[in-house]
């Protein structure tokens, strides 16, 4: 017997969670498209973002949400500075550029995780969010927890701004042209270093601030990153490599799957279920659930 009230509550929680995952997945997918790098560091950006919330907010005696502007600026700057290094190791005379990119970002991920572990120790920390407690009752539906709702609103807003930039501005057009063919983009006068830096910086900024919200929803712990790297892979494979609209669907599927698995099976089984889904999708439709990925034939 399925409890309808519980069921709708799980759907609400899953959708709200999906909103923030989408922002991570879209950035990750864009980094893959523009820089041709599978960014292993994505989950560690989430982790570092969460820790910035946990450490900086008490320092100012403020809420986690108020450090978002700082996180955005710091992550954008760091991302824009890291991009030339990624570009350097994935281009030129090097054999296996994709592997070089993996090794580089895997090293970056290990470095970030190790640094946070060394400085702050292994314990998880809370990101202050006392203003965002409780929930909003919606009769007939269920409760919208305030933290998750604000998180989802941020996710959807961040995504909208990002998509607007990508599809409605000159710079976004340049980034999409680069994603399709770097050399031809250069021949049209596009400074690829500049726009690749903007793209990677924007992705890092979105991912880091998503980390603050995830930290508020759960908590910040040095080991949390790997899970979000796995989530990013899940979304991009499910969406079809390089197909941005698919990432939105995949992020929502991810949120719902996590939510349902945690309630009906176990919180520990989430990754198991996700990868079971991935294997089935890869076997049945390698170009993603919508069949429109780069590998679509």
């Amino acid at each position: 017997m399925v409890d309808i009230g519980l069921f709708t509550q799980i759907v609400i929680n899953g959708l709200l969670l999906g909103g923030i995952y989408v922002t991570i997945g879209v950035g990750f997918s864009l980094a893959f498209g523009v820089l041709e790098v599978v960014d292993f560091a994505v989950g560690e950006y989430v982790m570092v973002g969460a820790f910035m919330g946990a450490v900086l907010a008490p320092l100012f005696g403020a809420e986690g949400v108020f450090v978002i502007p700082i996180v955005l600026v710091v992550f954008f700057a760091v991302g824009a500075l890291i991009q030339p290094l990624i570009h350097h190791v994935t281009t030129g005379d090097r054999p296996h550029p994709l592997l070089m990119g993996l090794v580089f970002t895997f090293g970056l991920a290990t470095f970030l995780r190790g640094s946070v572990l060394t400085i702050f120790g292994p314990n998880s920390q809370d990101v202050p969010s006392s203003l965002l407690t409780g929930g909003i009752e919606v009769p007939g539906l269920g409760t919208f927890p305030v933290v998750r709702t604000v998180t989802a609103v941020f996710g959807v807003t961040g995504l909208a701004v990002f998509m607007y930039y990508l599809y409605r501005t000159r710079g976004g057009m340049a980034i999409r042209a680069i994603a399709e063919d770097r050399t031809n983009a250069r021949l049209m006068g596009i400074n690829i270093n500049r726009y690749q830096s903007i793209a990677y910086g924007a992705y890092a900024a979105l991912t880091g601030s998503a980390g603050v919200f995830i930290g508020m929803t759960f908590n910040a712990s040095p080991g949390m990153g790997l899970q979000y790297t796995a989530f990013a892979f899940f979304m991009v494979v499910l969406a079809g490599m390089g197909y941005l609209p698919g990432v939105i669907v995949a992020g929502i599927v991810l949120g719902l799957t996590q939510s349902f698995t945690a309630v009906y099976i176990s919180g520990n089984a989430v990754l198991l279920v996700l990868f079971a889904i991935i294997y089935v999708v890869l076997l049945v439709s390698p170009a993603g659930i919508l069949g429109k990925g780069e590998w679509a034939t």
Partner: protein
Amino acid sequence: MSDVTGGGSGADDAADSDDAAGADFDGAQRTGDVPTLSATDVEAGYDQHQVLHGITFESRDGVTCIFGPNGSGKSTFLKTMNGIVPVWDGTITYGDVDLTDEKPEDIVTHGIATLPQGGGIFASLSVEENLNVGAFTVDDADAIAERKAEVLEVFPALEDKLDQKARELSGGQQMMVSLGRAMMTGADTFLLDEPSAGLAPRLVDDAFGLIERLVDRGAQVILIEQNVRAALRLADYVYILAEGEVQFHGPPEDLSEEDELMELYLGL
């Protein structure tokens, strides 16, 4: 913005008004005014492997063809001129501008546009976006609008397709997008890397027809082509490359007398 393209900056508009008559494309009526793209003793290659062993070259009015067997270095040479392949030794100049160490994204601003092999259009972008990418280095919105109108006048078939993704177009229309995009840069010199490659045979004549139109508008065209017979009909000057060196250069009339050369390098 090209300094040889009159209609570009607002301040020049008045001075140019008598010579930019009608809806003619920027480069029109300017035969003879286009700077010479020249290479002197250019050496280049990939990794440790040298491909070009001292190429000296000069673009001429009309179509300058570069022929040569596979692996002769003609495509590599074209890429030294647009900046994709770095020059090891020697110089490349455009008029009095030294391009030797310039990057591709800067070279296009001097008025040199490339049509990469296969057209190089951005398939996931709309046709209009492809044209806008061509004008990426142009800041003057009026100049962009003017050139777009001009491109649509030359290729009216694109008018209804502006909002479609470029990948949805036919091969011939994609060729038009590629040429139109190059025209949007405002270039006076066009580097064409085997425009007929990969085109259906019935489209090859169309492609060469489009190249003729560029020339009629006063542009200089540097053309690499495997389809030697078809390209010779357009050629005003011919270079033959083999093993990274210039084996012959001269007007096409001279070439027909060099039977040995034709057979040896061009298989004619």
